[in-house]
């Protein structure tokens, strides 16, 4: 029992979802920057159009899923260094985020996600009064 608990503590109890379809899904590369007011995410999602992108934020879990249309139907494959398939990645966001104000842009295959922090967690300068 103790071992089970320790195992759970180590691994967490987050369910890891597996896909039902055995289609190729790739993990897109992301840059994450935190500024005073927001968390900024940049993700490479080449071939994903606005209509094929789904971004969900629920219970501190940010999920980004992009579908990619087949691009070479009817052509014969000659040589390849990368595969074409859907993108999926999710992040656990520990910062307090104002979910209502999340905004996203997609340009030339790069997703820019703005996750504004809630007012309460933004850093505040505390004025220190000089003592006598």
């Amino acid at each position, binding site marked *: 029992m103790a071992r089970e608990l320790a195992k759970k503590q180590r*691994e*967490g109890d*987050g369910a890891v979802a597996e896909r039902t379809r055995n*289609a190729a899904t790739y993990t897109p*590369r992301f840059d994450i*920057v935190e500024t005073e007011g927001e968390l900024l995410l940049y993700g490479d999602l080449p071939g994903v159009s606005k209509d094929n992108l789904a971004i969900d934020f629920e219970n501190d879990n940010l999920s980004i899923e992009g579908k990619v249309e087949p*691009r070479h139907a009817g*052509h014969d494959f000659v040589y*390849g*260094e990368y595969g074409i398939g859907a993108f999926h990645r999710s992040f656990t966001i520990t910062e307090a985020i104002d979910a209502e104000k999340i905004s996203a842009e997609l340009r030339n295959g790069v997703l820019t996600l703005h996750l504004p922090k809630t007012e309460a967690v933004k850093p505040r300068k505390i004025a220190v009064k000089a003592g006598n």
Partner: protein
Amino acid sequence: MTNTLWRPFGGELFEPFGSAGWDWPDNPLAELNRLSTEMDRMFRRFGGGDRSFAPAVAYPALDMWQDANSVYVEAELPGMEVGDLEIYVTGGNQLSIRGERKPPVVEGGTWHRQERGYGQFSRLLNLPCDVKTDGVEAEFKDGVLTITLPKSEAAKPRRLAIKAD
């Protein structure tokens, strides 16, 4: 924080985490799942599994396709602008792609992750046949560059007439 540049011809792989070290994943199972996806990407990226796959040692990774009339070369170049790309066809069967990917401009802030790479790149690719240099077209959409190279007449497949006795 210094950006790690791609080394297109150096033979070294792009090092996304720089010298920041390895953070123990919050959820090892999720990390494992991600790893398996990465493995898929490495070994079984074409789904069918019957296609040979060359590991990409240079940036950008390229895919090549063809039909009876044209050769199609494709590269994923997210974040690039058309004006930042230079494409040349030389000697009838060599394709060269050059460009530079610029990092996003962020005033201040703390970088938690930097997995995307930036910098200059160039690649030279030998095409499987001669192409008509004049008819080459390049399209850039959603960060995917597709170059259509019409085959020269001599390179097009020809159906042979078989004489009957």
